[in-house]
């Protein structure tokens, strides 16, 4: 019997469904609508099957072509990766349901294929154990995202798509140069192998290669000066796609950066460099979000801010900091995806993305607005929602190092949280307590769009009120990453 708890299935099954969508579109238009749901349903199951394995062994490694890792490409799922994989799969599943009701524009089958490909690429980026494979996964994700951003084919989305494409292509090339430099230096592409062989390199050599990889992934990961595409692309894309882009794609890119940083460098050599970017990203994202009139653009800038926050938590580089970062990732992924989905449903009803037009929606679209509010509260870090636990953890972790730098950073983070509160509360009170000038015909979002929102909302509420398992799991994942267990276990299991 095939062992279903095989990480490679996480990629291959959705990919199979991508091609199935293409294949089936020759016969039936409507099949394409539902295939992604099945694909990610299976993915969720596989991810869940992986949980006991990962908990038992600390890591699950899957080879391709029947060869051991340095020879062939391998897929590695450790706790951290599993973490993200579960989020990505669940988001994929939920957003696929949303798509059924949301997408009504031709060519639908291409959309579904690309959408499935996008999430596949994201999962791929997370679990791959090979540098060049990472690049390929990066490109799969990017290409799918480019196409999806341009899906509406109107003025804004085409412009956004093109800007994204140019920046993404430059980023991809720089990433590839970085990877090739590591290859030239070590003669291998496997991450674990590179980690071991790069120990002989000088810091400058490592750093140059690393910087290029960092820039390449940072473009996708929305780090500050490199993220200019994001506020254009997220609003331009269909809301379901924005939800994925915001919820998990940037996270996956950041994850890749963290993974490579963690493997190649000692923390002390590099953390200031990373912290600098993290704080800039946080500051500029949050402040820019404050000025937005376009609700999706606001959420997009907020994504930049949140990315900065959890990237900062990574750079604290203690078990606590990493735990905080993971919690913040969960919080951000679930909440922000839900927000984009809700906002998408609202935009369908309102017919505008301008915040001013959202006045009084709280009374018309009660369920949607309720979940919007919950998501926003969680992002702001208001108790008893999940964001509170993660923010608590991050600040606690940061202040464990009582140097001026950390205290300054904490002050910045909290100031930016205030800014975040400022724009979210502005929106909230406009929606719930503002009165529209003329009475508009606005109905509650359709059932098909509400179901995914409600699912995500309940996930959020569940982990808010019962955070213990998530906290524990995050803690284990964090200590694994901290101790570089990844390398040791992979060496043991993969027999490198």
């Amino acid at each position, binding site marked *: 019997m095939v062992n279903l708890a095989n990480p490679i299935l996480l990629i291959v099954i959705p990919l199979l469904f991508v091609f199935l969508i293409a294949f089936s579109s020759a016969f039936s238009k409507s099949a394409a609508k539902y295939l992604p749901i099945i694909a990610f349903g299976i993915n969720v199951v596989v991810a869940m099957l992986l949980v006991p394995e990962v908990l038992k062994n600390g890591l699950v490694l899957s080879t391709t072509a029947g060869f051991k890792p340095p020879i062939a490409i391998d897929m590695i799922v450790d706790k951290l990766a599993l973490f993200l994989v579960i989020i990505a799969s669940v988001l994929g599943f939920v957003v696929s349901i949303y798509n059924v009701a949301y997408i009504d524009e031709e060519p639908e089958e291409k959309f579904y294929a690309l959408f499935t490909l996008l999430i596949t690429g994201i999962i791929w980026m997370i679990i791959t154990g090979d540098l060049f494979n990472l690049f390929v996964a990066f*490109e799969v994700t990017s290409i799918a995202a*480019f196409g999806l951003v341009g899906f509406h084919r109107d*003025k804004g989305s*085409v*412009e956004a798509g093109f800007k994204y494409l140019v920046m993404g292509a*430059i980023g991809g090339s720089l990433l590839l140069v970085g990877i090739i430099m590591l290859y030239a230096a070590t003669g291998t592409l496997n991450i674990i192998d590179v980690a071991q062989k790069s120990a002989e390199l000088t810091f400058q050599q490592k750093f140059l290669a690393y910087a290029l990889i960092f820039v390449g992934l940072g473009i996708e990961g929305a780090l500050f000066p490199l993220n200019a595409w994001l506020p254009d692309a997220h609003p331009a894309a269909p809301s379901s796609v924005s939800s994925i882009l915001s919820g998990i794609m940037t996270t996956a890119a950041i994850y890749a950066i963290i993974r490579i940083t963690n493997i190649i460098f000692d923390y002390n050599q590099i953390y200031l460099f990373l912290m600098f970017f993290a704080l800039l990203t946080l500051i500029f994202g949050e402040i820019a979000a404050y000025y937005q009139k376009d609700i999706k653009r606001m959420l997009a800038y907020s994504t930049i801010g949140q990315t900065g926050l959890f990237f900062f938590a990574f750079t604290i580089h203690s078990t606590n900091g990493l735990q905080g970062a993971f919690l913040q990732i969960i919080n951000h992924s679930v909440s922000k995806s839900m927000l984009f989905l809700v906002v998408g449903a609202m935009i369908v009803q309102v017919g505008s993305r301008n915040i001013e037009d959202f006045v009084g929606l709280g009374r018309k679209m009660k369920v949607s607005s309720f979940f919007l509010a919950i998501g926003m509260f969680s992002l702001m870090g208001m108790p008893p929602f999940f964001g509170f636990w993660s923010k608590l953890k991050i600040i606690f972790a940061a202040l464990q190092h009582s140097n001026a730098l950390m205290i300054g950073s904490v002050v910045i983070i909290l100031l930016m949280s205030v800014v975040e509160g400022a724009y979210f509360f502005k929106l909230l009170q406009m929606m719930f307590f503002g009165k529209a000038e003329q009475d508009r015909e606005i109905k509650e979002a359709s059932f098909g769009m509400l179901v995914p929102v409600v699912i995500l909302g309940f996930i959020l509420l569940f982990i808010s009120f019962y955070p213990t398992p998530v906290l524990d799991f995050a803690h284990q994942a964090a200590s694994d990453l901290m101790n570089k267990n990844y390398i040791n276990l992979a060496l043991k299991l993969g027999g490198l």
Partner: protein
Amino acid sequence: MSYYLGSFLLIAIGLYTVIIKKNLIKIVIGLNFIASGVNLLIVSIGYVKNGTAPIFSKIGINPSAMVDPIPQALTLTAIVIDASELALAVAFVVLLYRHYGTLDIKKIRSLKW
């Protein structure tokens, strides 16, 4: 070394084009420059002095005289990816021209702030 330098220059020229040039087509060409430079770099890394192509067209060829096969494989993949990106980029350029009636990137600024 000159091979390296050539690839570096290609990359640099590509980046320069992307930053300085205003024409969308030129920007796309710039992307292509970068991609070509990277591919050239990959292939040149794999070269071993006096090496032959890694094909065992006859039995008994000494594998130690061959060049590194991995960069070649990587290049194959990279080329296809670049081609895909280029196709998409060109498609975007066409649509941009249709929407804005211009190829000047400075005028395509409806999304900002």
